[in-house]
């Protein structure tokens, strides 16, 4: 359901309107810029006439002083021209930049809003390409194409009307070609757009291939697979080469049609015009005037033609962006019930008949589980049995297929994500650290500690008995823990543990949070867990049985079923009996 890369189905006009919507609030600025554009085009059109006038009326008549004055005037006009183009570029450029800026932020926000399953269906490189490259393509549309498009359009319309006014028959003949051109544009839009989209998509998958290759670079080296790395990406490069070449060829050829139409119009006017001259319908003078104007008509059409490729590319980019923006999270927050649907003061979490599965097969069936305040729970089971899945449902990273999860008496779905994470601390199996120092990582996502100074944070750390964990880092809070820090998995787990404890969760879920730390540290963690407030519930997933010895209740998960086990001895019995 979160799969991107479907072909575009939206129509041309609708897309144009959508894109126009992006610059809606800049409408007045764009109008201002357009007025400047028109002013400049008037100057461009009329200054040759003015110069002709100067030649005929002043130079030829030897009027030196008047020539001087006239040229001062001409210079002032040019000065106005430069000033106006200065403002025009600035205003339009800013609109383009702002639109890209807004779009990028919007897509990024969307990415963070969508559920985890979105990322399982899409590749990071492609998403990066959509945020960076496709928005940049649209920037080109706003900053360059828009104005020239409208200007050419005005010119065409103006000259067209003038031509028709001059001679309706010839006018319709020369301007009439616009209609088949328009039909052609609409008709071929989908085809050309899809070709462009495929080219952009292939750039996206090239990015994906590159980022996946680079992120797994160590594997290629250690398996002596440098060549394989090379070949894999080469394949994507070749694919991108084919698709982009096709797109750039098609864009070129499709704009050729507009060129051709302009030429055809000239031929038509000449042929029919001469016929009309013969039939004395028009004078030769009219025909000459006509031909001159038809040539003028042809210029903006050429400009328009050169824009066609960019426009098609932009539309395809917009499709790719819009695909993301259109998506909605399936984890909507529902209206909170007026009354608690389950009222037991002691219970924090209750799962009732919860089923969960991917595609069509259920991973978890009929899960019934209750987490009471202040108690410690352990979840054990073979690898791949769905322990993490179960835990992530409590955090609402996924919704159950059926059944209900209740948090503090209300449906879990009625809590905002931040309300849930304020109460539940979750140490993920994969320790993920953000680029930066230990301090930044500990403050990350923590609204209470985010604005503390270093010494204040240190105090909070001491208050929660985490000082000893912190001491394991030579540079303390200033320790760099980013990509280039060579931190081991165990060390990363120290950070994620501290980060979770510092959030003062009411329920702490630990998903194999200590799998790579040594026994001594594990004991330290245990002591810290024991010193948490008495009403803190703990939910521990672990393979090391000693980490769950202190659990009040133990659940075993196997073959999709979750059952409560009386005590550790029984767990051992079950493991012994199983066919391991």
């Amino acid at each position: 359901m979160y799969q991107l890369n479907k072909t575009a189905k939206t129509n041309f006009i609708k897309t144009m309107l959508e894109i126009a919507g992006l610059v809606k609030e800049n409408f007045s600025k764009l109008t201002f810029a357009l007025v400047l554009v028109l002013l400049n085009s008037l100057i461009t059109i009329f200054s040759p006439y003015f110069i002709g006038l100067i030649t005929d009326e002043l130079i030829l008549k030897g009027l030196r002083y008047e020539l001087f004055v006239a040229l001062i005037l001409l210079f002032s006009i040019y000065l106005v021209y430069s000033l106006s183009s200065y403002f025009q570029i600035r205003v339009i450029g800013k609109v383009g930049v702002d639109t890209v800026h807004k779009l990028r932020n919007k897509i990024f926000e969307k990415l963070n809003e969508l559920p985890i399953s979105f990322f399982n269906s899409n590749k990071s490189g492609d998403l990066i390409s959509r945020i960076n490259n496709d928005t940049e393509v649209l920037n080109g549309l706003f900053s360059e194409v828009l104005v020239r498009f409208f200007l050419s359009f005005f010119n065409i319309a103006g000259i067209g009307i003038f031509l028709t006014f001059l001679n309706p028959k010839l006018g319709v003949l020369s301007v009439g070609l616009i209609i088949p051109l328009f039909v052609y544009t609409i008709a071929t839009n989908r085809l050309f757009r899809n070709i462009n989209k495929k080219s952009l998509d292939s750039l996206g998958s090239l990015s994906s291939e590159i980022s996946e290759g680079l992120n797994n670079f160590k594997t290629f080296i250690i398996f002596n697979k440098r060549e394989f790395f090379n070949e894999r990406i080469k394949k994507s490069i070749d694919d991108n080469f084919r698709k982009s070449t096709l797109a750039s060829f098609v864009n070129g050829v499709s704009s050729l049609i507009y060129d051709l139409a302009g030429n055809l119009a000239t031929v038509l006017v000449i042929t029919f015009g001469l016929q009309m001259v013969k039939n004395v319908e028009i004078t030769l003078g009219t025909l000459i005037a006509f031909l001159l104007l038809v040539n003028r008509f042809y210029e903006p059409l050429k400009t328009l033609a050169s824009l066609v490729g960019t426009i098609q590319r932009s539309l395809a980019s917009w499709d790719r962006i819009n695909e993301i923006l259109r998506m909605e999270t399936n984890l909507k927050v529902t209206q909170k019930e007026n009354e608690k649907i389950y009222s037991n003061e002691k219970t924090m979490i209750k799962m009732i008949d919860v089923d969960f599965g991917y595609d069509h097969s259920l991973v978890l069936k009929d899960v019934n589980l209750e987490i009471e305040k202040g108690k410690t729970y352990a979840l054990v089971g073979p690898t791949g049995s769905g322990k993490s899945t179960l835990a992530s449902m409590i955090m609402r990273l996924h919704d159950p297929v059926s059944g209900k999860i209740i948090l503090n008496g209300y449906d879990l779905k009625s809590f905002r994500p931040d309300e849930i994470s304020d109460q539940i601390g979750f140490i993920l199996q994969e320790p993920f650290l953000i680029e930066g120092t230990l301090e930044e990582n500990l403050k990350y996502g923590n609204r209470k500690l985010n604005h503390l100074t270093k010494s204040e944070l240190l105090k909070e750390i001491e208050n929660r008995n985490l000082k000893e964990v912190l001491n394991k880092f030579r540079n303390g809070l200033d320790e760099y823990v980013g990509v280039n820090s060579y931190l081991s998995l165990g060390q990363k787990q120290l950070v994620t543990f501290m980060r979770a404890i510092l959030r003062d969760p009411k329920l702490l879920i630990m998903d194999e949070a200590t799998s790579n730390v040594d026994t001594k540290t594990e004991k330290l963690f245990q002591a810290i867990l024991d010193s948490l407030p008495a009403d803190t519930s703990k939910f521990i997933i672990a393979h090391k049985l000693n980490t769950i010895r202190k659990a009040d209740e133990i659940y075993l998960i196997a073959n999709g079923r979750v059952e409560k086990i009386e005590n550790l001895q029984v767990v051992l019995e079950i493991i012994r009996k199983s066919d391991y």
Partner: protein
Amino acid sequence: MKNNSYKPKKSFVHFLAPHAGWILLITITNLISNGISLVIPRFTANLINEVKISGSIDTNFTLTWFFSALALILILSIMQILIASISSENIAATLRKKIIKKISQQDTSFVDQKTSSKLLTNLTSDIDFIKTFVSQGFSSLVSTVFLALGASFSLLLIDANLALIVILSIPLMMLTFILIFKKLMKLFKNSQEVIDKLNLKISETIFGANLVRVLSSQEFEKEKFNKLTNTSREISIKIVNNFGMLLPIINLIFNTVLVLVIYFGGINVIENSLSLGEFQAFYQYTGLLLAPIFILGFVGGTISRAFSSYSRIAEVLESSDSTINSDNKMLIDIKGNFEIRDLNFSVGEKQILKKIKLKIHTGQKVAIIGPTAAGKTALVNTILGLNKNFTGDILLEGISILNIEEESIYKQIGVVFQDSLIFNSSIRENITLGDCFSDDEIMKVIKIACLDDLVRSEIDLEKIISERGGSLSGGQKQRLTLARALVRKPKVLILDDITARVDIGTEKKIIKNIFEDFADATLIFITQKVELIKNFDNIIFLMEGEILGEGKHEELLNRCFEYRQIYESQRNVEYQLLDGYPS
């Protein structure tokens, strides 16, 4: 912003030289197509003149001429478009392959330091800018020069004094260009650097998607991202503003020259030292001379973008190959004899390995145990040649690893890392990495790695795994990478804490399988669990980068206090289960 501008050793021209053929082709076809586009208007103009003079024309002749001209133009244009598309895309593809080839010859530390997000920008948008330059910028540049030279020559022929005014304005325009482009190039470079950072931020958000949701840190992410896009926005606006300065200034200089030409030319005409025809011709040629310079203003952006992107790409292409200097490196047969003498390794000021001394013999089962951050992973990475700047000797079969071909090491040693790196492809490809293995071979290692829960039969091998193994559990990912190493039947196996996320039963079974099926292989096994390694031939206890003890389990218990401490702390119910553990 940090500005460590890289100065390429090779010039941009030198860099493009291998593509000269393609570039020439694009340029020539572009010039032809520009020429063609002038044909029809010129023809119409001639027609008008003819009609003006003679009052009539030969319709049939005109039409035939016209349509054949149109047909020719159509054919030539299509050819031109085809050539231009193929050649510019071809250059882009070739450059991309060049960079990828370069990266493929580097160490892991190269990718870590350059960061994958920057390399991604290099391979995508930086190349695109160079492509734009080659496909559009260069030919405009050439036609500009041609037109300008021709026009200046004509001007000089007509009136040398007047021509001086025009020609003198050219350095002035050039100066403006240079001043503004200098600024622009820096800005373009900055803007590409922000793109690097945006890439990094986006991939962080994607890779850390779970964390963001668990902590509800969307606001934090948004803030950070907005900060970056704001920087990007500021740079882009500066770029726009510089362009906003450039074009009007050039325009003004151009128009001022026109006004001057008209004034002085006009005076000359009045004084009869210049004919009206010459005056008009002069005026038109001035336009011809200056218009292309004006076009250069548009093209200039493309050029300076390409230049700044080039210096970024050159930084990658010109870095020295870290591995492929195989002059005195040899291919050897690895049996599993390691000797390490006085090995020290530091990252920055932090010394990670201190004076390591160690011998491992063929077929030995060796365990490395020790607390978090003891340097266990660093030790095996160094033995594998992944850490370069160590001191001391690492000998494999008596030969320093510095003198052994990388191929020898990695083909014969199987490694499984702590972090399971998984590809977005089928299970089969995740195991084979493109090599040929029979289904039987694959299914066998699947059994050994206890991956049967994921792969029940051959059909499951084609199952596609999502990026970074998002659809697998942590334990499944570990076992999948184990299968990847085992299928190659390595003579040495290095396993870094691979059973951390696997349940006790499976863990036990995996080790039993490896002991049975890889009985002859040398095994180096990193773990936290004493009980797993009791029967190993040699146990190395590592702490804070130092070997504190070495020997068999019983020996270490007596000799090494810290080892004993760990053993005692782990003696609980869990491991009693593992009694009767295979040897």
